[in-house]
């Protein structure tokens, strides 16, 4: 596989991970986590692990964001420092 694409996507995954950690707004963190799982699925697919990519796709796109958002709805939206 073309290693440049792999590197770019890896960098993006790391960026999104840091972004999700760094934002103080929990809803934004949930949304960024969704994008993180998209890119992670792409990374698995590039590496050839199709089953793992499928799992990541269904879990990340389907339910994990919804569960996190609903948990945020029932608790608070701001992190305290």
């Amino acid at each position, binding site marked *: *596989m*073309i290693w440049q694409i792999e590197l770019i996507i890896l960098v*993006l995954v790391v*960026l*999104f991970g840091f*972004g999700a950690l760094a934002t*103080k*707004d929990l*809803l*934004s963190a*949930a*949304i*960024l986590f*969704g*994008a993180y799982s*998209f*890119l992670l*699925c*792409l990374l698995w*697919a*590039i590496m*050839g692990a*199709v089953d793992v*990519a*499928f799992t990541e*796709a*269904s879990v990340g*796109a*389907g*339910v994990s*964001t*919804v569960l996190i*958002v*609903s948990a*945020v*709805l029932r608790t*608070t*939206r*701001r992190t305290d420092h």
Partner: protein
Amino acid sequence: MLLPTYRCLIGPTVFDRLVGVNAIGSKTIVMLILIGLIYKRVDMFVDIALAYAMLNFIAVLAASRYFQKQKGLYDKTGKRTPLI
């Protein structure tokens, strides 16, 4: 794909992040099929792309439901500081 990432990470409000995530999702579908073509096994990757096409909007719907329930960009506590 880099530019929506900018909008996602920097974007002033939550909604800009949502827009960015939506754009990234549609690009992901195309990239998956492209990877399938490169590996010459499109029949495998098409399933993943189909799952994405079906499930991509659940996250957006959930986030929009959040705003329908919890009115306003502001927190419940009454601090009128905009959440970024």
